[in-house]
């Protein structure tokens, strides 16, 4: 094994001068690579809904415009069948595609740069063995000037600080394994870490929650109010494994992450992730919450009783694995109410997994509640049963409604 790693290191350090045979084809490496592709959730982005695995074609709505994920099957014409190992590895870790083309950081190479050599070479070994699929994809559908890939030179200069994963020797092996997955292949921060104006990570707020694709990927630091502070380690593991736990159900983009990635991870890795997330030390000072207007609360409470209590119950406890609990829910108390507004207006279907196949759904209420009613309802839900979060105003709901009407 050590020899293998050494070879791989040599391969990586020697840049483009790599030959195909240096990436091992033995079953162990391929199988490990398959698992790394699960950790890295390659299929989550590179498989279109209903499409062939890894054949690309999924649209990503970024703040800068639309990107369509490329075909990464070994098809020679439309996939990466002609790529050398070095080109593959460089794309994963440095964001440089074939012939040095610069990738957009929707491909999470800033976090993949933390992946171990062993994992990346295994990944390469695996991707040579998957079924080639002919599927032409035009990835770059960004508007000018973002469609100029050279602009990524500047972006990388500001935002891309490639460095290997550095274990914290004061923590357990489990914690370090979890940190590696979260920061490296798992690329949790790609969604959960807020971005600067250029779309680079605000590292000082890592995992504090971020808006993307019309959702708000919640705070997953140990913060008590709006993070995962109240979840036990077991609840975290259960959520990642089944898509649901006593607190909530995964839906939206997280349901894809559960389907393609976390539900297929080993229990050891899920435990490691939970160990790290419960003790990441990334929580930041809680925002001051102004108490809401009592009249709005009264209106919101009446709307809640008429529209929500049948499932979520008067006491906000909901029903495990069916109707998310609202009382004490971190998701409900996020500083940014985007996800809440979206779910109330448009509804949402929870992920279905083999272990929790129900996939219950929240119906849309956009036809029934106007902006002021949605705002009052959410203000109520965010400030009842010991919940505390900023009031939602009707202008914000109006904007979300307009955005949803325009988005595909």
């Amino acid at each position, binding site marked *: 094994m050590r020899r293998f790693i050494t070879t791989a290191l040599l391969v990586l350090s020697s840049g483009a001068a790599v030959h195909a045979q240096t990436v091992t084809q033995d079953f162990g490496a391929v199988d490990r690579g398959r698992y790394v592709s699960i950790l890295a959730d390659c299929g989550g982005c590179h498989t279109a809904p209903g499409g062939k695995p890894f054949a690309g074609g999924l649209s990503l709505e970024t703040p800068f415009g639309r990107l369509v994920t490329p075909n990464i099957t070994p098809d020679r014409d439309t996939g990466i069948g002609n790529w050398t190992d070095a080109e593959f590895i460089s794309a994963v870790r440095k964001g440089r595609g074939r012939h040095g083309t610069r990738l957009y950081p929707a491909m999470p190479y800033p976090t993949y740069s933390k992946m171990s050599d062993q994992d990346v070479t295994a990944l390469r070994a695996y991707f040579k063995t998957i079924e080639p699929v002919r599927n032409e994809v035009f990835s770059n559908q960004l508007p000018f000037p973002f469609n100029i890939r050279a602009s990524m030179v500047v972006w990388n200069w500001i935002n891309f600080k490639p460095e290997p994963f550095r274990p914290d020797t004061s923590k357990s092996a489990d914690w370090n394994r979890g940190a590696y997955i979260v920061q490296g292949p798992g690329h949790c921060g790609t969604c959960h870490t807020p971005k600067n104006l250029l779309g680079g990570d605000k590292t000082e707020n890592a995992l504090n929650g971020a808006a993307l694709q019309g959702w708000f990927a919640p705070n997953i630091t140990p913060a008590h109010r709006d993070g995962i502070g109240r979840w036990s380690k077991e609840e975290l593991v259960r959520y990642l494994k089944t898509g649901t736990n006593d607190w909530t159900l995964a839906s939206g983009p997280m349901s894809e992450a559960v389907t393609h990635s976390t539900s297929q991870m080993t229990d050891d890795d899920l435990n490691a992730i939970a160990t790290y997330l419960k003790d990441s030390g990334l929580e930041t000072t809680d925002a001051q919450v102004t108490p809401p207007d009592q009249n709005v609360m009264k209106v919101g409470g009446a709307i809640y009783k008429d529209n929500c209590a049948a*499932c979520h119950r008067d006491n906000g406890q909901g029903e495990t694995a069916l109707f998310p609990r609202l009382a004490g829910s971190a998701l409900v108390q996020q500083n940014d109410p985007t996800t809440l507004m979206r779910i109330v207006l448009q509804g949402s279907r929870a992920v279905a997994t083999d272990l929790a196949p129900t996939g219950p759904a929240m*119906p849309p209420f956009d036809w029934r509640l106007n902006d002021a009613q949605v705002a009052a309802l959410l203000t109520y839900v965010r400030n009842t049963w010991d919940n505390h979060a900023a009031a939602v105003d009707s202008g914000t709901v109006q904007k979300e409604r307009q955005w949803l009407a325009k988005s595909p």
Partner: protein
Amino acid sequence: MPRKLPRKDVVIIGLGWTGAILGYELATSGLDVVAIERGPWRDTANDFPPAYAPDELRYAVRLDLFLRTQQDTLTVRNKTNQTALPIRQFAGFLPGNGVGGAGVHWNGQTWRFLPTDFNLRSHLEQRYGKQMLPDDMTIQDWPVSYDELEPYYDRFEKLCGTSGKAGNLRGQILPGGNPFEGWRSSDYPTPPLKQNYGQTLFAEAARKTGHNPFPQPASNLSEAYTNPLGIRMGQCTYCGHCERFGCGNYSKSSPQTCVLPALMRLPNFSARTESEVTKINLDSTGKRATGVTYVDSSGEEWEQPADLVLVCAFSLFNVRLLLLSGIGTPYDPQTGQGVVGRNYAYQTTSSVGVILKDKILNPFIATGANGMMIDDYNGDNFDHSGLGFVGGGYMGAGQSNARPIQTHPVPSGTPKWGAAWKKAVAETYQSAMRLSTHGSSYSYRDCYLDLDPTYKDRFGRPLMRMTFDFHDNELKMSAYLTDRLAEIARALDPVELTATPRTGPYNANIYQTTHNTGGTVMGNDPATSVVNRYCQSWDVSNVFIPGGASVFPQNHGYNPTNTVGALAYWTADAIRNRYLKNPGPLG
């Protein structure tokens, strides 16, 4: 010419309870299965969201979830010498339409038949002598016993998460349950629902008059439940919108809430909706089915070849499909020969309305199957000597709903409209209670289904004709049961009591139940049955009718769904463990 599709192992006609159960059981056995469903796809959140599922006008009055007569209907008459006329608006019974079938719009009553129901003819002849049964009564023993079916009842109840209280646990009679029920291998999966005030008052009156009240077994769940397929259901909210409605709270058992989430994940199962099977195709020998022909919503005709054809439509349409496909000999009431269409039966229901003194019953707190019942007058639970009839039914106080458009009880003598009527409704709504009996409907030589000689459907196929009337035996039974119920009701000291026993002739314009049974009955003798004890066609061995109520030899004093579900599992096991190993007639 229909376009021919690639072959499947199994084609299922209709995706209701039996189609969903068989689909799951056979797809998880590794078979490639397709279900073809006449109506639309239906899903809890998209089709019955709580925000508008309880729309009485849309669902209960305008019957949104049901079959439209433009799609299909049947003709009805009471006697063989009459000319049948087509139903132009379903009223007396309401066939469902779409994925989930009757499992979407049912109330959730989940009864088992009595052990003596399964050997009905031999039991009655042995206890009372042959002369007790009218000559033209064509009841027969089931080809399965209660003991054989018990594990399958158990499975269906666990699939549903049925709420109730065991009365006979492995032979031990338990207080608070139904002491007359057949033995149960386990208690109900969830505890009984909470009872409303009216039901509690009825139970007290029944106990006082020497009866044995118990909570009706209900597939409206008293608490959250995860079924053996891993599917999660919620607690019932007692909203009173079950029958004719889909449940938005995931708390009424249905294919949607109990099977489909797991079934639709299986890569070797698919469903085609808004596609109506017009015919089961046979090979040149007529002994083997080659698949089915169906028409999609654009009118295009398709042929779906398959090795195994499962007829899982609503009972009436199972019968019609066999008649249209030439499977089995059609029944002839003149000669008594033939089997397809024979022994059509129904349900004999009646009611007793009471208005109580100074009581506030809050009847809107309701669930489809909530209620306190007694089983003292069901089947042969009581001595019929000298009564002049056989059969019986359960009775009691069910509170399935008290919805505003269709619930306006008034004392007798109230004007039919105007200010006095409104005042009376307002005064009576809270204190009125409707008690009911749910009686058996035994089969007769002149009650049957065949193809209508005159009327045709939109595809030019003959409509099915129903010839049915209540017989003296059932009317006497209904009178007797209604009297017993009225006696109990008098113990409530009502201000007013109105007893309405069932009277003939049968009227298809007044809603009674949608418990249409028989026509492809199961039995041990091909001369008097369409399918054998494994619900397999005697004539075409790769056609099964896995448990639709069309296989009931007669109907008993209970709602049919639990027996339908049990037979579906029974048939699935027979196919999996016996038929697949050696395809051909099962001995």
